[in-house]
């Protein structure tokens, strides 16, 4: 396949996903995940209130120190607490959600009606493989995004901002390399190693398309992440509760970006498979 054809497939995958957005059923897995994220946010905002306090207070004190239990500091670090909780949620529930969404997108792109129940039934027996893939991918992404800048800080003449951009770039590349594992497991029924090999091979053949399929939704999040990182400023200039509203917006926005991550990746995979 030539570069132009690959680019064509990339845009086709996006257009197909955008057109399919009319079918609200495709949003259901992301919406359900968003509801769970919302529940976590509510728990963290009401961390001092029973019944949440009984679980959250010792946990937050253990992981964030006593400062997390004081207002308004709890609001300043709310995005960090939320992201950590979300990371765990994505491991437990998120992998399944992505699997179900992949199954529904693939069904839809095959011209059939996507069904949530069918998706769940298909994904449940594959949960173990999806979870292991998530552990591998998340470990590598976190290694690049969090640990790499920490290790390199002070040992290289590169500036902090440059290091952060570089690590983000590596993180996206890892994400792009793992991008097709879900569709290979759920749709094609491949095992762990075959899914990994298949995804890496597809990434090798379609590096740019795969990179942008992951990069676009990821980069769309950056401005919001930047604003959420300015917790102290937001609290001093406005009100601490603005951080809750921003996180609610973040959850809503994630439903949208997740849709445009999984949809185009699944669409692109099916188009490439059809062509080959």
């Amino acid at each position, binding site marked *: 396949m030539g570069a132009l054809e690959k680019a064509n497939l990339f845009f086709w995958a996006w257009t197909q996903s955008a057109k399919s957005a009319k079918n609200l059923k495709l949003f259901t897995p992301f919406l359900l995940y968003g509801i769970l994220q919302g529940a976590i946010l509510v728990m963290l905002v009401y961390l*001092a209130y029973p019944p949440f306090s009984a679980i959250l207070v010792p946990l937050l004190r253990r992981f964030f120190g006593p400062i997390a239990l004081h207002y308004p500091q709890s609001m300043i670090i709310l995005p960090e607490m939320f992201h950590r909780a979300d990371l765990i949620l994505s491991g437990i529930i998120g992998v399944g959600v992505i699997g179900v969404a992949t199954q529904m997108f693939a069904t839809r792109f095959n011209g059939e009606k996507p069904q949530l129940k069918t998706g769940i039934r298909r994904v449940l027996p594959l949960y173990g493989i999806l979870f292991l893939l998530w552990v591998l991918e998340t470990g590598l992404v976190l290694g690049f995004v969090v640990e790499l800048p920490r290790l390199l800080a002070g040992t290289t003449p590169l500036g902090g901002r440059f290091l952060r951009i570089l690590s983000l770039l590596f993180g996206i590349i890892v994400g792009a390399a793992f991008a097709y594992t879900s569709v290979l497991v759920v749709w094609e029924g491949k095992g762990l190693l075959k899914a990994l090999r298949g995804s890496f091979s597809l990434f090798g053949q379609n590096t740019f398309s795969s990179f942008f399929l992951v990069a676009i939704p990821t980069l769309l999040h950056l401005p919001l992440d930047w604003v959420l990182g300015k917790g102290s400023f937001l609290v001093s200039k406005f*009100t*601490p509760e603005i951080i809750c509203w921003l996180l609610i917006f973040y959850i809503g926005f994630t439903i949208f970006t997740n849709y445009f991550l999984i949809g185009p990746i699944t669409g692109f995979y099916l188009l490439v498979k059809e062509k080959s």
Partner: protein
Amino acid sequence: MKRIFLIILIPLSLLAGCSRESSILPRYKAEKAFFKAGKLYQRILINPALAQKDDYNRTIEAYRKVIGFQGQGKELRDLATRARLKIAQLWLGQKDYLQAIAEYRQVWEENTGNPNLQALVGLSIAQTYEEMGDLQTSIKEYTKLAQSYLAAGEKPQKELLSVPLKVPRLYRRLGKRAEGKYGWARGLYQGIVAHQPESPLALLAQNQIALSYADQGEWKKAADALEQIVRQHPQSPLLPQVLFTAGNIYSQRLSSPERALQTYQRILNGYPQYQLGGEVLLSIGKVYLQKGKPEKARESFQKVIKDFPKDLSSSAQAQFGIGSSYEAEGKWDEALNEYRWVIDKYPHTQAALQVPLYLADHYSQKKMNNLAEQEYKRAVKTYEGMVEKYPKSLFAAYAQERIAQCYLHQKRWKEATSSLWALTRDYPPSSPVADGLLVLGMIYESQLQDNSGALRAYKEFLRRFPRHPLKEKVEKKMEKLK
């Protein structure tokens, strides 16, 4: 399904059972209320002059909510104390001193186990009485405080060190003899010095001893007290400041220029990075001028301008000093040139304010009447330019005061009174406005023989400066005039 439910439920119930965290809720709610009250307080602080009674009441109410949270724990109690202290400050902001004192007393009673906090609250109570003009009670409170927290020979808080000296100073404000009280204050300070002679606190106490002698005009003893600091605390970062004060006493109070020069030189040699280096050099120049060595003085002044260009105030004074050095040598034309440079190079400084009137007065004293008249006119114009350039500022108020002085020096009483009324009308209460009103009263009284005008000026003075130290004298004057 049942098994999954149990797997989730057991750890949760264990966590809940082990946890003793239910008590954080009242504290957390109180913190939230405290933060919200703080936001309201910030709004008042942005422009207290524009804050309405309602704004204060709403903020006080918000802080009262914090106090209202019931629960156990030190953090919650501390929060309530902080809220009460804020309420006291809000009452002070409204000049409702008695309410503020009531809040402070409440804090005092609620914190019997915290003597440090009690001491600071006691200080606030004494300061509040002082601010409201009840000097007798203020003296009692300061005395009580000093005896409770400074007499014991323990390590007192730094904030309390000014307390003993407050007592004789307030006695003097009441018009009473205070020699005994100064002795008493020094006794307390000497106790602190003797207890830990090399501690930073001892340095501060020794400095208070020097201040007490300075208050009484016993400059030799004040300088000796400062020298003792220099001997006992050779490594203190405060030493250049101590030496500078001692140098100023030698030059300005003890007419001991050699000793002053030695002291200043010690600062320049030992502390080349001292932030007031420009002022030290300036003082050296002034001492040389006093000693009749204008050339040496000029050298010092030029060094100030060269080495401390960012210290505009010192540089402007140094520029003026260069003029004075030429004047001392009888070179008036060069001096005039340097003086005029002050206004051109440093237009927004006290030295620039000084120049126009100084030049006019020079010609007037030399009986060069035509030149003097021209120079006064020029001075008024220069000052009017300053008023226009920096409108409504304190600098403009000083310039307006100088306009009045130009007329006063020319004995043009009508013009002087109208420019002084303009000063009092156009500017908020400040030192030049207070001085202006007093001068106005005196012009009406002694030059224009207009008692009603004088009464009007003094009445305005009392209205705008109700706690001015000269209040009682002005009231007596008014009685006589009536």
